[in-house]
């Protein structure tokens, strides 16, 4: 039985990276299709007509979009190295924290990076509030998944490599080791895990990309009248 697994991704999308990590952790063979998001392929638009985004997993010709949806699909289809816990309550908690990561942590940290002045200050305060909840949730575990990397770790994984890039570009501390010791140590452990370390976009390229995004954001906010 031939399994055909394709992942439509870009070189830097943190959402697509989640799927790379999941596939690698489970040892699933796949073909990566790199998209230039400024010039989307007809195939991408055909497979994800609703959002027109990456990642898209195409399994035996059938597309699945949205990283959380793809992760659960992968976990249900390839049962080795489970990402989500078995117990329904623990699963609900994992889904809760994953949603919190994207809805609150990611948005506040992104704002702390991309905004200036008062908006940035407020974003930093919001980010710290959100990180406090994550710090508490770590509860002395090595990973959010326990002894090994799980669903929440994969969803939050961008924190482990993107935050230091943001901090370097704007010269601000977003995840202070003294305030968030457990989270900080999780970031090191996660980034150093072999599968993660071997599947991260090059740091220098990321710095160039995000610096350009920040410059564009600053230019457009100073040219618009308030």
């Amino acid at each position, binding site marked *: 039985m031939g399994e055909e697994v394709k992942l439509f991704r870009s070189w830097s999308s943190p959402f697509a990276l989640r799927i790379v990590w999941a596939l690698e952790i489970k040892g699933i063979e796949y073909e990566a299709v790199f998209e230039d998001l400024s010039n989307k392929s007809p195939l991408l638009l055909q497979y994800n007509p*609703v959002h027109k985004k990456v990642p898209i997993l195409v*399994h035996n010709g*059938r597309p*699945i*979009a*949205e990283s*959380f*949806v*793809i992760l*659960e*699909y992968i976990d*249900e*289809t390839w049962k080795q190295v489970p990402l989500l816990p078995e117990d*329904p*309550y623990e*699963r*609900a908690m994992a*889904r*809760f924290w994953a*949603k*919190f990561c994207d809805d609150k942590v990611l948005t506040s940290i992104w704002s702390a990076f991309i905004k200036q002045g008062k908006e940035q200050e407020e974003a930093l305060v919001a980010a710290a509030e959100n990180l406090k*909840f994550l710090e508490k949730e770590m509860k002395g575990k090595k990973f959010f998944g326990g002894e090994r990397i799980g669903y929440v770790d994969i969803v939050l994984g961008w924190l482990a490599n993107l935050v230091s890039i943001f901090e370097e570009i704007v010269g601000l501390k977003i995840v202070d080791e003294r305030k968030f010791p457990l989270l900080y140590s999780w970031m090191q452990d996660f980034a150093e895990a072999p599968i993660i370390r071997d599947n991260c976009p090059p740091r220098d390229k990321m710095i160039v990309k995000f610096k350009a995004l920040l410059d564009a954001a600053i230019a457009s906010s100073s040219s618009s009248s308030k």
Partner: protein
Amino acid sequence: MADEIILLDFLPSIFGMRVRVALAEKGLMYEYREQDLWNKSPLLLEMNPVHKKIPVLIHNGKPICESTIIVQYIDEVWKDKSPLLPADPYERAQARFWADYIDKKLYDLGKKITLTKGEEQDTRKREFLDFLKLLEGELGDKPFFGGENFGFVDVSLVAFSSRFYAYESFGNFSIEAECPKLIAWTKRCMERESVSSSLLDPQKVHDFVAGMRRRYGVE
């Protein structure tokens, strides 16, 4: 061993209605506790310290938050009756995709209709109707989004129908005129006891939204 199920909720809440529908589909007995969202109870703050929002399901003392997550939890724990998600992983992924899209868009689209006027409101109405048309396309000729059976996407969407009268009234437009298939679907859903007993009467929802408009100074 009897299960203790408590639902912290707010009658006009679309998100709360989803959980009520899911509990009813599974034939579960539970204690409903209406919350005052402008004066939040210690229990709500204790059970949902992160978001401080309803709905919260408390099952044998343990809280679960976020309506879509609660519905999946209910479906997984009481899996032998009226399954809401299909068995096949690909079908499940499609159901989760559409439920996620409805979650991301529809509440804000509808809310904006009720809180705007004039040209801005016209734009909001257009966006709202376009979204409903997209959902109609997804429904196709099936009786429910879940196919022959009432399912996860149906649960995610049906509660919004309790707000349609409010949207139409404050937006001065007819949803049925542009989306007849979707309205037919809402009527089909309302024939189910789980839905008709869980959704708040549209007039009461309308009056609640009217109150919110006054609160936000739209009137």
